């Protein structure tokens, strides 16, 4: 999986390409930790090129959104999830907890 981070004034966008699974989830976890260690808590995860997510990936994102929302300091939002990827969030009951956006530009504007 490729992880690319673009930092804007108020938001950091992490774009994932490939499979977010047990092999690759630790890399995403490390990248989110790097951002949060630098007091960056508004994070947009671009899933437009993410082909697969397992519970290992879901757990990283669940941990991230809990950390971001603590003290109301930020949020982790998801953009352009495919129907199959979104179905995994539905299965885990996380579809109501995460904000899903349709496109990156408006998602950044809405943050």
């Amino acid at each position, binding site marked *: 999986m490729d992880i690319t981070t673009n930092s804007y004034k108020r938001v950091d966008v992490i774009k994932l390409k490939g*499979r977010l699974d*047990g*092999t690759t989830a630790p890399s995403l976890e490390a990248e989110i930790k790097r951002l949060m260690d630098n007091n960056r808590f508004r994070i947009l995860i671009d899933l437009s090129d993410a082909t697969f997510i397992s519970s290992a990936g879901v757990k990283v994102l669940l941990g991230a959104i809990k950390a971001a929302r603590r003290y109301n300091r930020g949020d982790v939002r998801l953009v352009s999830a495919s129907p199959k990827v979104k179905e995994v969030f539905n299965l885990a009951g996380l579809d109501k907890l995460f904000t899903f956006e349709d496109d990156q530009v408006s998602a950044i504007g809405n943050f």
Partner: protein
Amino acid sequence: MGRCTYSLTVPGRVESLPQIMAFLADRAREWDLETGETYEIELVVEEACMNIIHHGYSEAIQGEIHLVCQLKGQEMTFILEDDAPPFDPSQVPEPDVEAPLEERTLGGLGIFFMRRIMDKVQFEQLKPRGNRLTLVKHRTFPASADPPV
């Protein structure tokens, strides 16, 4: 349709996951699975493997994962065997997927996914050691076939 059985044995480590997923992708192509079915099969087998790797094996206890994939008629069966200490699924609490964010815990999602997606999930403890997990799903008809009347 004939009976098709394939097996793969790999070290029980995270580094083996790509090989396992490639093996499943080959089965998905041969069995003409729909995209959604393929995703579900890859998801539950990954969850099963991650449970073996993270909760069964450790630095002190290492072993292999033996995976058997079988298609018999419309029934897909995936059997995973390990050499790990006995696993008791009743000791894994089911996640509360309705709980508010602050009460969400990170464990138990893998088995929860298996039970939601597959038609049968069976755990067995093997003698003298090891565990066997059997996952069964009745597939939908392939896109190329006429649907049942």
